[in-house]
């Protein structure tokens, strides 16, 4: 079971309190009805599914209930960091070589 730090509660809590909400930083178009089929496919279905560093959304369902973002290594399942929703995608990751 993962131990996840909620950036709002500022606490590490067991995974059971959280719900994974998929890949992060996928912007929904302001004009979704006007999207081309290609762009809608990219937004809705295509995922990076990386072996390594993933940027993903979590929701602290059974805590503060807020969405936040996390950076995790999908090989070791170790979290690099978590950060609040709306904050920019971190460029420098602590403890991760380029």
């Amino acid at each position, binding site marked *: 079971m993962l131990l996840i730090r909620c950036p709002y509660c500022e606490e590490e809590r067991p995974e059971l309190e959280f719900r994974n909400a998929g890949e992060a930083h996928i912007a929904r178009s302001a004009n979704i009805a006007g999207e081309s089929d290609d762009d809608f496919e990219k937004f809705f279905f295509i995922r990076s599914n990386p072996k390594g560093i993933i940027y993903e959304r979590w929701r602290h369902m059974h805590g503060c209930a807020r969405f936040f973002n996390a950076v995790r290594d*999908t090989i070791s399942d170790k979290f690099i960091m978590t950060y609040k929703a709306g904050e920019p995608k971190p460029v420098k990751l602590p403890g991760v070589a380029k």
Partner: protein
Amino acid sequence: MKKYSVFAIAREAMRGHKGWEEQWSSPEPKKDYDVIIVGAGGHGLATAYYLATVHGITNVAVLEKGWLGGGNTGRNTTIIRSNYLYDESAGIYDHALKLWDGLSQELNYNVMYSARGVMMLAHNVHDIQVLKRHVHANRLNGIDNEWLTPEQAKEFCPPLNISKQARYPVMGAALQRRGGTARHDAVAWGYARGASARGVHIIQNCEVTGVKRAANGAVTGVETTRGFIGAKRVGVVAAGHSSVIMNMAGVRMPLESYPLQALVSEPVKPVVPCVVMSNTVHAYISQSDKGELVIGAGTDQYVSYSQTGGLHILQHTLDAICEMFPIFTRMKMLRSWGGIVDVTPDRSPILAKTPVPGLYVNCGWGTGGFKATPGSGHVFAHTIARDDPHPINAPFTIERFRTGRLIDEAAAAAVAH
């Protein structure tokens, strides 16, 4: 290839079992092949086998980063069934089921296919409606599936608890009698032996690290940990790593990879005569011929390549097993493990040509690929050999996620994915 038979056993018994030959050879990779298959699991080896036997293409290499059948082929719960809802799914899964019947004879290798029946339990009104809809849809597609009352379900599987006092009582079941199990390792080994005997090169410990393309975009071969290997046609059958390989060719996939776990108990005398699945409480169980209870759990909720999974997922499944079968509450579990499954948004596989000329992909089987192994290999070999999909796999394109023509078993599957 020497045939296995009762005479071969007698002959070898007479001379101290010194005449058994290797089941498949392990040649050095050549500079180039007609076709390269990435991934020596059941689906990849079956593809190579049918390329050789049906299409006469034997200049084929199957590249495997680890050992043959060491991925999801060796990690699944060996369940075989074809009672899917939609016509497209019914087509491909029943094509596979028909090939399972007779596969041991075809391969001259005992894959231990046992049509012991797959029973799916209904625990509420919604389950009853969904499963009955499946029964009717299956009948229209010529696939056997029948409705059982709780008493009939208990008669078919005596250890089942049908008490009305249960938290999720059994209110009925759908039974596919042709469903069952097979020996998963033997499937990989049998196809490997058959393919190798016809000249296919099976190259283990050879990881693909890049896909080479010519100026016009067409595939020219793959970079591997054992050097460059050329081929004008490359079939990617890499399960959980499919999107990793496809990324090397510049194709982004509608896939996410999750850990899926299973576990086995200590071996006991025969007690579960069939496969029992329950979507609602999420558990499935059968008994291997060794006597172990084979139990399948669910996926973790996050993308991972760790080939492990959370303990609470197993616990959740065992809760359900103990409720359905109180007789097992004091059983000891021996081993658990995880495999990485590649899941598509509509929970149906992708077996298709790709936007890259000469590159083909067979992926997205999610949590239920084992049952399809023979059919998947058969139609994928056709797709590669003819550069055109077989009618059975024609609907399973990548483009369906752009056109919207999904095969939406996600909402309709008879079992949790």
